[in-house]
């Protein structure tokens, strides 16, 4: 089942399927180790539809809600 990253709950793992944003966002996410195929764990979700905190390849990244919505993931 594919959903967007912003709808994943805390401490759940997901695999990136694709990134629906444009060139800039793909490149910037790629730099931080987020490509199709990578496994992401959602660590924290801020209140008031704030950003989410994920960990990927042993590293923590904060993603704004709008950015997270552009990452399409798959949960087992």
């Amino acid at each position, binding site marked *: 089942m594919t959903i967007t990253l912003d709808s994943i709950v805390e401490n759940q793992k997901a695999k990136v399927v694709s990134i629906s944003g444009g*060139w*800039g*966002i*793909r*490149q*910037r*996410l*790629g*730099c*931080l*180790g987020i*490509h*199709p*195929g990578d496994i992401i764990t959602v660590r*924290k*979700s*801020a*209140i*008031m*539809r*704030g*950003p989410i*905190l994920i960990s990927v*390849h*042993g*590293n*923590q*990244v*904060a*993603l*704004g*809600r*709008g*950015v*997270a919505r552009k990452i399409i993931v798959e949960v087992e």
Partner: protein
Amino acid sequence: MKIALMGQPNSGKSTIFNHVAGYKAVTSNFPGKTVEYTLTKFNLFGQVTELVDLPGTYSLTSFDLAELEARKYLLKGNVDVVINVIDASLLSRSLELTLQLLELKLPMVICLNMIDEAERKGIKIDIEKLSKVFGAPVVPAVAVKGKGIKKLFSTAYEVGEKKRIGKTINFSKDVEEVISQLSAQIKKKQIEQEFNIPERFLALKYLENDRYFMENYERKSNDLFKKIVHFQNILKETHGRQSDVVISSERHHLSMNIYESVVSLTKPYKSTIDYLDNILMHPFLGYISLGLIFYLFFNLIFGAGKIVEEPLLDYFYRLIPLIGKSINPNTLSFSIISGIIQGLAGGIAIVLPYLFPFLFGLAILEDLGYLPRVAFLLDAFLHKIGLHGKAIIPFVLGYGCTVPAIMATRILESERDRFIASVLATMIPCAARMTIIFALVAFYISPQAALVVYILNIIVIIISGKILSRLLPEITPGMILEIPAYHIPSIKVALAKTWLRMKEFIFIAWPLLIVGSTILSLLQYYKADNYINQFFSPLTSFLLGLPIVVGTTLIFGILRKELSMLMLIQAIGTSNVAAVMSATQIMTFTIFVIFYVPCVATIAVLWREIGSKRTFFTIAFTSILAIILATITRFVY
């Protein structure tokens, strides 16, 4: 020889740089604090060597201004050796930049920094194997402790002498095929000589659709452009993804493979500092801690400053009447001497006691890695004023000094965001204005009143942000921010950083302060200050209800914000401000000084970063705001 430090943000380049240069570059624990390059010259085996600390960059396909600066510097092509600094605890991700740097075919050394942190995380790296893979020497280091730095530079020297270039590692066969075909096309074009970089590197940038390199051709729409599009389409068809995704996935897979072949994983060792996020980033406790941390922070500064301010002020103001006994108080020389003493006193007794604890505390928070957490917590709120979480970093730095705050807006991606953040940053009370709030409002009215000033200031900034984002309606790109691991701050580094920032006050502001107070003494002696005060009286006296003598102080305040307060004390002729001004007047004066016209240094940096028109807009906007707010204060407070 010219050596450049290049690496991903927060990998420790500036820390290595400072080992060689002394503390010259500001280091902190958040990605993107170095926005301009810093240079130093040092002696390496009897040779004068230049070392450049470049802003951190995640890849050579760059986005923000700081990253572009780093890339431009490298592409200019006069660097002899590149030191690729890697945070060893983030090896797999960092190798992607290393692969790109190798494509440039420059002599290179790889520095595995924070090797202790990597081991703590259970990552054990086979150094020799890694060095073989890249055909470049690899030196492990712990830069904060100075470990491995000597070895690093002796290796760099050797590599530079021998001009030793690392291996280029190939992608999958079909991708390589496309790259070499495109490279061959580039070769024929003499026009490419202007870049002076390997064809393969350029071909890759074209396939990655890099804006900087593509712009040239998109407009001209010439032969080569059509060929580039042709090859981009080949990759797109064979892989079912955009060509830039194909290239970045190739690089990603290569780095993952290299990572897996050189690393053996063991059980990570968790220390208590790793659990800090359970509180500091908690959806509820996080905000309580945020409020508490900043409340305690300002209380401590005020507590520490007050202990020192009172006795020192007493001492200095007993000194002037003493001099008056030996020199006639009505002479010119007495005016000059008392002007100099008041300038000295202002620096020692009023500014330094608050400035030092503030800058030291800020340094500790920065080095711990708290600022990116604040960005996470406040992202949703910043969206309400049309910005995103990262903008909090320039804002927090703004409490120290507005100049680095405006420089730090470079970490924001869009020009509009940088403009709004710059204007708002000028309204944040910097350390100079903090001394005014503390020494006038907190000291003469109450610490609670000072807190109210800070809270009101934030409210005004929020409203201004809303107005500006209405004027420039554009959706801010979302936040993508790395949250680095916490580091236990080193007292030594924090003190060095505090000193670096205080130097600015001691060597630039203080002499200005002494000269300024002497000039004011002379103006008073020749009664020339009356003209200036008369000129400003419609504003100061009529509208704001302040003593007429504050007119001159406002001019000095444009030079340096703290001057306006110190000049005020001199202008009214007593250190006991409360004897001459009412609480309302003190409050009105403070509010006006916080907002009106940014200081000269800020105007200069604004001019450079956002241009003349927008700088004039900022000056007008803040002046109008200051007049309105101060008038309200006069009648309401």
